[in-house]
């Protein structure tokens, strides 16, 4: 018999660890044609951070994103970033890039203030123009100012910036303290169908609702969430290293079962944008958080479907079947499902 159930799981996840140093630095140079080059140690391993960081640089300088060139993860040329880990890149490297851009922009605004007749603090830049905040029609091309700064004033438009959230350390005795700078939150709902004769679980649908601060690039955020859900699905149901006397028995991807495209269900993604005052343009992070609620949501859905609690992952068909047998032994004659809320059986 096949039985359906739904499960929900929530999570919060820390962004920007502070228990030990967490630095990133960036350089930026604005060219005479109004384009810019950004040097960052942040490494894009496919998650799209180089794109998101270019968008951050473009908005911080006030130029179109297509005019930003990124030089990344080259230890000879770029300043250090400690790595694409801990879902920290957008938050930490993004903040470093914003600071580098602020420094370069200060040079631009100082030069532009002569032309626009107002102090640098009254200026803003957007889309290749520098303008008076209160009279936006009073404006000058950013490229013109960049050329003037370098050629006439001898002030190259460069900036350097770094970000390292205040290291707080933790109490060595208790482990207490403030270990992270900020947090993201999410909830996921899984709908499953359990085959009560084989223990097989088919995940029919996942809804994933995630806070990531400001979504710098919503499509990339959505991609991260979908990828995370697929990983969470493997964690929940099939990915298992089988050890025998310390040796791994399933040493190949033919035997260590990562979900295929046929195993991943439709995923409804919703992004909840709550800008964080400490993040670059309010951004936090999304990498790891996306996979955290998937397994507990699926395991809760299995419980809702057939009334057994699986406490060892992955929830393989064999483990579920054994749990169903145990339950039947405890309550002979009763069905595998014993709803606590008194609703009729599905």
């Amino acid at each position, binding site marked *: 018999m096949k039985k359906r159930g739904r499960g929900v799981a929530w999570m919060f996840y820390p962004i920007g660890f502070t228990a030990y140093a967490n630095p990133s630095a960036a350089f930026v140079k604005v060219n005479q044609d109004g384009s810019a080059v950004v040097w960052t140690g942040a490494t894009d391993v496919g998650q799209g951070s180089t794109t998101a960081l270019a968008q951050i640089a473009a908005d911080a300088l006030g130029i179109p994103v297509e005019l930003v060139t990124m030089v990344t993860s080259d230890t000879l040329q770029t300043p250090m970033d400690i790595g694409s880990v801990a879902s920290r890149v957008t938050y930490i490297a993004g903040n470093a890039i914003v600071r580098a851009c602020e420094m370069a922009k200060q040079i631009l605004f100082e030069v532009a203030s002569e032309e626009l007749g107002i102090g640098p603090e009254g200026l803003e830049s957007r889309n290749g123009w520098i303008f008076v905040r209160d009279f936006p029609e009073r404006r000058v091309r950013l490229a013109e100012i960049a050329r003037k700064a370098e050629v006439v004033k001898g002030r190259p438009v460069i900036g350097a910036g770094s970000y390292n959230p205040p290291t707080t350390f933790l109490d060595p005795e208790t482990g207490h303290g403030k270990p992270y700078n900020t947090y993201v939150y999410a909830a996921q709902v899984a709908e499953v169908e359990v085959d009560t*004769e*084989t223990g*097989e679980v088919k995940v029919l649908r996942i809804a994933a609702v995630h806070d990531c601060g400001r979504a710098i690039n919503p499509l990339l955020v959505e991609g991260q969430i979908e990828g995370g859900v697929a990983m969470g699905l493997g964690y929940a149901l*099939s990915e298992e290293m*089988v050890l025998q006397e310390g040796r791994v*028995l*399933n040493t190949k991807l*033919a*035997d260590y*079962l990562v*979900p*295929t495209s*046929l*195993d991943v269900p439709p995923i409804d993604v919703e992004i909840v944008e709550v800008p964080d005052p400490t993040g670059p343009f309010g951004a936090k992070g999304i990498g790891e958080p996306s996979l955290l609620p998937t397994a507990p949501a699926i395991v809760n859905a299995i419980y809702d479907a057939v009334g057994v609690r699986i406490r060892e992952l992955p929830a*393989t*068909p*064999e483990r579920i*079947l054994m749990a169903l047998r145990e339950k039947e032994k405890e309550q002979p004659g009763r069905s595998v499902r014993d709803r606590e809320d008194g609703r009729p059986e599905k």
Partner: protein
Amino acid sequence: MSFLYFVPATVQEAVELLSHYGEDAKVIAGGTDLVVRIRDGLIQPAALVDIERIPELSRISLEDSRLHIGATATIASILESIEVNHLAPVVSEAARQMGAVQLRNRATIGGNLASAVPSADMAPPLLVLEATVSITGPSGEQTLPIDEFFTGPHQSALRPDEVLTSIEIPVQESGTGAAFVKFGKRSAQVIAVVNAAAWVRIRKGRIEEARIALGAVAPTPIRARGAEVLLRGQEIRADLLEDAAQAAAMEARPITDFRGTLEFRRELCRVLVRRALEQAVQRAIKREQE
């Protein structure tokens, strides 16, 4: 690793090469099993004889009321074949559940059988259809019932100087139905924990004859002949199919490995055989009414 690589144009030429190199040669077609075994160092052939360029070996056709499937017909070409889909749909049903698209484009039906792995997905349907296999060696061609082909894990009736050339399936009469069921731990690209096929011929609510085959639960794919006897001549009832499934599970000789324990496999045998029987009976009834 290094080996000689031959591409014979005829079966005759292939057999001559195999006779020359003997145990040191291996036949290769899609290579999806063989190349993995070479790379893992499990076998070290001195020569590979590639039979994929022998045109007649990939032919699928209807000949004298037998469906002929050439040994190098790919799983993908079997899926696309109207003849197979129409005359032996249970073979298509198994082909659809084998590997994934890329693998089905390379893997051949002959390779799936000649590798002689206990979990081969093409074996159970061919066992219940009582297919025969044609083998060509130095002394000519011979035909063998498929249940005499498998002799052990990675062992078959094929001698080192012989080539498996085709599989022949008798065309099914009215009132017959068959089904294949596979249990793997994900939806594609997975080796079966257990697979099973069932075939029945029914007349007026009675099972005249039944055949059951199981994979991945013994050193070779097997027929569950004891369970078949239980069904023969009986009126179709749900508890009869369950009893037969139970009997088939007791005929299985599974082992425990990382894909599943002995107990789990035996339980799967029961469930899969019952489901395969139920589907086979439904299909047979439908065909009887047509």
